């Protein structure tokens, strides 16, 4: 399971049960009684078929009614005793189409990706701006990682898009597990994932990227070759300005090199800091520091 911190529930699609989504509204219990009576009456005369999803609750909020054969005047009569709107089937289909369209629009406005549940590009762009500003203000480092699945097209072409999608979800889970709570994993687009890593030096990002790369190779293969990813890394350098695209391009360049260099590897742009954690004392230096031969002293 992916850690929940990287997951946001995708918007619930409404299209599954069109009969249930006729405009509803709150209605008092008294009115329900009245409505129910009317409907019973109408049904007795076989004028309509009715789905009443008033529920077992005392104060039903949502009604679902489909009244194909209700005449316009009957519908009007219903509207007068309740604020439930009764649609014809044709009317309903139109309404469903409208909702679908609206839904699609809303999804594009949302910040998560429908397939993987990860943050989408929109959120990524917003958050990266924030983190870059933070780095300029506080001087704390910020690194960016771009991953691209190797031979994803081959998988799609060979086993179909369903398998391809399943694999995308699997990879997003595997990557999510290897990240820290502060890392921000996004679906950048297609088979590309981006990870914003606040308060992370290029060196630390490099270690994490290696871990990710190894864990993807461990996913049970579907084709002859094991799965793999190529990863590009860069650390934000405030002296390069505020342009997000410069930072992203730098990371992309590294990713391109990783692909070009034979895939299944991590490349980075920029200079690794000369910090102690990078094991600054080489074997040669150590040999002299720790030698026991006094005469060669100084």
């Amino acid at each position, binding site marked *: 399971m992916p850690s929940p911190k990287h997951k946001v529930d995708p918007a619930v699609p409404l299209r599954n049960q069109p009969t249930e989504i006729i405009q509803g509204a709150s209605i008092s219990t008294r009115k329900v009684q009245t409505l129910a009576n009317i409907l019973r009456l109408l049904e007795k005369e076989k004028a309509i078929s009715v789905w009443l999803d008033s529920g077992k609750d005392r104060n039903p909020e949502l009604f679902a009614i489909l009244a194909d054969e209700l005449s316009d005047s009957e519908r009007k009569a219903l509207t007068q005793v309740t604020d439930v709107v009764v649609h014809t089937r044709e009317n309903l289909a139109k309404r469903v189409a409208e909702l679908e369209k609206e839904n699609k629009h809303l999804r594009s406005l949302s910040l998560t990706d429908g397939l993987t549940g990860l943050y989408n590009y929109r959120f990524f762009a917003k958050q990266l701006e924030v983190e870059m500003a933070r780095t300029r203000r506080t001087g704390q480092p910020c690194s960016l990682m771009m991953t691209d699945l190797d031979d994803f097209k081959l998988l799609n072409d060979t086993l179909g898009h369903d398998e391809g999608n399943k694999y995308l979800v699997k990879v997003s889970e595997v990557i999510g597990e290897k990240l820290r709570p502060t890392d921000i994993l996004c679906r950048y687009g297609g088979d590309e994932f981006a990870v914003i890593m606040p308060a992370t030096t290029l060196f630390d990002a490099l270690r994490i990227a290696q871990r990710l790369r190894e864990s993807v190779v461990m996913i049970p293969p579907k084709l002859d070759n094991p799965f793999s990813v190529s990863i590009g890394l860069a650390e934000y350098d405030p002296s390069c300005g505020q342009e997000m695209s410069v930072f992203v391009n730098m990371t992309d360049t590294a990713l391109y090199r990783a692909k070009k260099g034979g895939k299944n590897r991590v490349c980075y742009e920029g200079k690794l800091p*000369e*910090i102690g954690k990078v094991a600054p004392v080489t074997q040669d230096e150590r040999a*002299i520091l*720790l030698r026991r031969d006094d005469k060669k002293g*100084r």
Partner: protein
Amino acid sequence: MQSKEPVITSIASGKGGVGKTFITANLAACLVREGRKVLVVDCDLGLANMDILLGITPMFTLQDVVFGDQTIQDVITSTKAGFDLLPASSGVKEMGQLLYEKIQMIKSALGSIFPNYDEVLLDTGAGISEVVLQFNLFAPRNIIVLNREPTSLTDAYAVIKVMHQRFDRTSFGIIVNSARDEKEADRLFGHVDTVCRDFLGISLHYLGHIVSDEAIPRSIVNQKVLVQTHPNSRVGMNCFNIARAASNWKPQAMATEGPSAK
């Protein structure tokens, strides 16, 4: 006699437990005996222990300046050894991982009180974290303490290498602690100096050694400053020699960022 610009010296070691705090306290006491007005800043944020070594319980610490509303003047306390101390808190994790912003804040607060002193000694923490490096960068003079342990030698060299490669520092003073004798101290210094010449192209400045002696742990247990209680002991003499050498040492290239840059 007060100069506007105090001599600011950091004492670092790379590896912990090589006697950095002991040496800082004793060098400070030596300087006091030479008539200097001395401030010691415990920069070992997160694992501060200068106050414990001196047997004092500070009312406020540097932490109260960074996260509370104490001024840096309120936190400074005088010690029996004659120097002033700016104590830090121990066991406060956040202090060990201060953000860049806070380090800058401490630096500028320190800058405001420095004119009151002739000498400022920064007792920096172990390791080469950003906080440690920033405090070493703050001092134009960097002294590195090492002993015969292999890990001390490599860690001391690691500090020198990082300070050189990242901040262009070219001059370091070296103190060898817990040496069996002068010969061993010379030899240990020689090793580090050779590597610095061969690999970094810089040479080190030898400030002296302190012999391994029962008197040192005893003074620490008793929470006394050794040069004050036993100025004429072997260790005491070692300390005075080092203090003298340090006073005469003038690092050539004053590289990047001193306190004068605000």
